């Protein structure tokens, strides 16, 4: 029971980590590649929000802070707390360059989750909880109901002044 509570807390923390970093780096504003545009407009057709749709399209098509958070947590779990996160940040940076993406959302997400895991280990949460928690967090955004989660992401984008101007 204690582990389930820990996984739920880790899920909430990693959800906030990657949503805030991605929204701040401008993911809901415009689609980075053509595939993200297709996914975004399809979500809007099915009753969602366009900025939230662009956010989800960018999540699918290029490594961003969600990839950085997951790989940072995996690195910290398997290779020790500061070193694993730095190796994961390097791998995400190489992956970003392979996708010809100039942004640094993935690297920033990996570094920030390394700091969070280092602080959380003082409270007794092991890094493995963050790995499972991140999978739960991404499932709540992309696996349950696309229209509702895109509206939530659009509301967060509007609050942080990153809403899209495209129609």
């Amino acid at each position: 029971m204690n582990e389930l509570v820990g996984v739920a807390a880790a899920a909430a923390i990693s959800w906030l980590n990657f949503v805030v970093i991605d929204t701040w780096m401008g993911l809901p504003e415009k689609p980075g590649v053509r595939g993200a545009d297709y996914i975004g407009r399809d979500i809007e057709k099915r009753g969602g929000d366009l900025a939230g749709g662009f956010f989800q399209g960018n999540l699918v098509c290029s490594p961003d802070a969600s990839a950085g958070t997951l790989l940072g947590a995996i690195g910290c779990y398997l290779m020790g707390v500061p070193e694993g996160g730095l190796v994961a940040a390097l791998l995400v940076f190489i992956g970003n360059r392979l996708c010809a993406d100039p942004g640094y959302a993935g690297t920033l997400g990996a570094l920030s989750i390394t700091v969070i895991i280092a602080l959380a280990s003082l409270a007794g949460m092991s890094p493995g909880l963050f790995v499972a928690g991140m999978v739960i967090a991404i499932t709540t955004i992309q696996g349950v109901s696309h229209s509702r989660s895109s509206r939530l992401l659009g509301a967060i984008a509007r609050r942080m002044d990153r809403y899209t101007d495209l129609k």
Partner: protein
Amino acid sequence: MLIQITGIIVVLMAVRTLLAQDRAERLLYLNAMSFGISAMIALYVGTAFGAVLAAVYFVASTITSNAIAHTLDRVGEEMVIED
């Protein structure tokens, strides 16, 4: 315990990919499933090479999803010849 939680998520996303009606919806479920597969590989193989394998699988699956979405946008509705 952690592998079982991720295992449930992977199984659910795989079934939803099969039963979905819309193609962009399938891509989103596929992406969530790839997150789950990366995590399961890393949790099962408990060494540093497991982390590298999970990272390589994840980046490769992102490139694949990007290519499929690009093709879906470019092709639209395919012309299939019935025979």
